[in-house]
């Protein structure tokens, strides 16, 4: 754990007022996406994540590490999803999804699962924080559109599309390139 991750956990444990904003900024949207993989719809997914965060605020748990805290977040959201699907008499869907993504069942799978989630969570956040013009172009690029199509869509030159893509990749590289940023992300 680096210094900032350590301080984040301390602030969470001390229930420091400002830390909840950071909690949202870093985890909210991704956890909603994560929940949507189970419950399909955005609204119940948001309800579930809100409940998890309120639970953290209300509860008396002390977290020992940033790693453990993240694992706890994902687990809590999964449980929330299971409860929701049970309520909707759709547990079957939950177990099918679980089977489809968690092949084996070995303990180390949890580490891989966390790695996978973190790959996307941080990436989505950094892409989201790109300067707007750059972000829009990059979003289309991610969707598989060619340079000419993107240029057409936004009424800009192909040259601009290329340079915005390059800029996005450069910024991504800078932001993902410093372990420090793990906390920021």
């Amino acid at each position: 754990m680096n210094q900032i991750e350590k301080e984040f956990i301390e602030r969470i444990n001390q229930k420091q007022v400002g830390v909840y904003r950071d909690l949202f900024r870093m985890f909210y949207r991704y956890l909603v996406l994560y929940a949507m993989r189970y419950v399909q719809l955005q609204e119940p997914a948001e309800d579930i994540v809100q409940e998890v965060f309120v639970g953290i605020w209300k509860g008396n748990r002390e977290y020992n590490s940033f790693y453990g805290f993240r694992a706890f977040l994902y687990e809590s959201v999964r449980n929330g999803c299971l409860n929701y699907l049970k309520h909707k008499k759709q547990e079957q869907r939950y177990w099918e999804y679980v089977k489809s993504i968690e092949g084996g069942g070995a303990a180390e799978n949890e580490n891989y699962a966390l790695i996978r989630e973190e790959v996307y969570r941080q990436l989505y956040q950094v892409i989201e924080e790109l300067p707007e013009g750059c972000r829009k172009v990059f979003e289309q690029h991610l969707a598989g559109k060619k340079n000419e199509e993107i240029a057409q869509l936004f009424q800009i030159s192909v040259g601009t599309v290329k340079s915005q893509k390059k800029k996005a990749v450069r910024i991504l590289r800078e932001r993902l390139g410093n372990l420090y940023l793990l906390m920021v992300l």
Partner: protein
Amino acid sequence: MESDEIIRLIQLRLTGELTPEENNKLECWVSESAVNRDFLHVVLQEKLLSREYPLYHAIDEEKAIRRFEATIGKHKRKYISFKHILRAAAILVWPLVMVVVWQWNAPQPENSVTETIVPGSSRAVLTLAGGEQVELTGQTEQEILVAPEIEVRQKAGMLAYDMKGGERIGRGGQNVLATGRGGEYRLILADGTRVFLNAATILRYPVVFDDEVRRVQLEGEAYFEVAKDSGRPFVVETTGMEVKVYGTSFNINTLRINEIQTVLVEGSISICSVAAGREYRMCPGQLARWDKISSSVKLQEVDVSLYTAWKEGVFRFSRERLEEILGILANWYDVEVLYQNQEIKDLHFSGYMERYERIETILKALEEATGVHFSVWGKTITVSK
């Protein structure tokens, strides 16, 4: 290889190209086990990024935060009423406790007068466009008319210019918020940007922001959380140097003796040396030191918490010169410092202490660590060795 490194390599692989060195590292990891190989294969195949990113983008985070704050607000009110019940019971116990505490804390004879020195607190003076001044403290709650038809809320150490349901447009002139020594204050500007002013700090800002650019002027030290607005850059002007903000959180300090220090916590800013006409782009985790004399800029990687600890109510010093430390304490406690000789100023100290603590506690710690002696008379501290 560490998880963090793997995460980063995969992220770069998903969005761009790896350098030959990075490629080797990834290949190496893949060859370590079949599980690794399968894992990477799945991630590269599933094309999750393109499918999910639009959904991610569509989620309204600000709305979610407001919902959360509303929920915990309701819970807090429940807790408060419970406290009232407890308080009634406590009143009976209190008189006994008071006697015991008073005996234990009987005043010791001191050879210095220190009752007049108190730590800083939430207070500032607001100067409106027309020149009128309004005193602000941490206790009062009021609406202040800062311009024709523009009212702002003052509450609990914070002044808020933002409006629910969209930003104000039109004209409002400039306002100035000054904390003075021993003060600190929080501010929310018209666009939602949050600023926390430290002691001896002056911020000039418009009541309503321009369409093209958001400009403020700073003398002193403040922590900024800039509201995202890619259409309008946010610029902080100080004497000789400007900070251009592309997004979010950083700390600027002009109070140090030889330089202006800017620390970027997250997001993206650049430092512009006005005279030199040069712009230096900063990365999170960096400190930019702008030399007041030569106008040159040095960038270095630092532990940002060292520079932002003040807003959490803490002084943090890492091998800091005594002169700088006492300068910071002087601004916060509103005292004057005199040195018996020049060498004392160069003594170094590292430490961590609460900002709302009495100054005596801090001076004692400094005495023990550096071997100097402080004598206090009224609001003047004399340092000798």
